[in-house]
């Protein structure tokens, strides 16, 4: 689980990486932090799995309530818009 540092690229510890996981999966991590985290994920199976897990759970939330608005609601809103 310990980060492999042999190629001299600065990398995070697991503890530092975990703190940035949410920002990483939300595509909110930029610059050096992103590069360093990506490097860590290439060398740490445990953190890589954590990221994949968080992405999977996020995708399950993204799939909730998929579908178009109901016809009833659309008619109601169109009527409402005519009243103003």
């Amino acid at each position, binding site marked *: *689980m310990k980060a492999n540092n042999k190629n001299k690229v600065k990398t995070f510890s697991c503890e530092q990486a975990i703190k940035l996981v*949410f*920002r990483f999966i*939300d*595509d*909110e991590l930029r610059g050096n932090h992103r590069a360093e985290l990506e490097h860590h994920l290439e060398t740490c*199976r*445990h953190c890589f*799995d*954590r990221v*994949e*897990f*968080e992405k*999977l*759970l*996020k995708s*399950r*939330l*993204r*799939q*909730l*309530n*998929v*579908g*178009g*608005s*109901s016809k*009833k*609601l*659309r008619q*109601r*809103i*169109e009527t*409402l*818009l*005519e009243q*103003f």
Partner: protein
Amino acid sequence: MQLTQQQREELKRLVLPLLDDLERFALSLCSREDLAEELVAATIASACESFTRLRDTTKVKQWLFRILSNKFLSDCRKQSRHKEIGLTDSFEDEDSQFSLFAEVSQPFLLWWGNPERELISRIMDEDIRNALDTLPIDFRVAVVLCDVEGLTYEEIADILKIKLGTVRSRIARGRSILQKKLWHHAQDLGLVKTKEAQL
């Protein structure tokens, strides 16, 4: 406020294509179709009243989401049935640092098994909706905007009129609490064993 015919047509042109997004957002917050429809209708009524104050029509989605969020938060705070879940600060720190992955993963399995992925595949959408529904309302709104609606932190900050750091914190704490709820639910259903039971 009475809109002119031209304003009404402009509002229709802007609002109707966003109805699916609004209903999905409302449904994710309320989890009941009837409440979600009421929330969307109230949002549109409010948008009609304040339409003349909308300056940047390219940000109409954020504007409508802001109205809907504010209505939802305001309604929740008024209703006593939400009192027990409405206080953002009522959750302990340990709730906000919980990781479902840390509870379920078994690193020694390496390539031969992936219990955390198995668990996610066995959790039903309804379980996730129920867990989402129990989040403190401020956290729920942030998590829904990020995970269900796919908005950026900056867009969420703009909608909720809060700082970026607060957005990050609400999303992180909300997700942790959500994962803890899912963990307890999975235990209740016998989908997972505690680490103690695995020994």
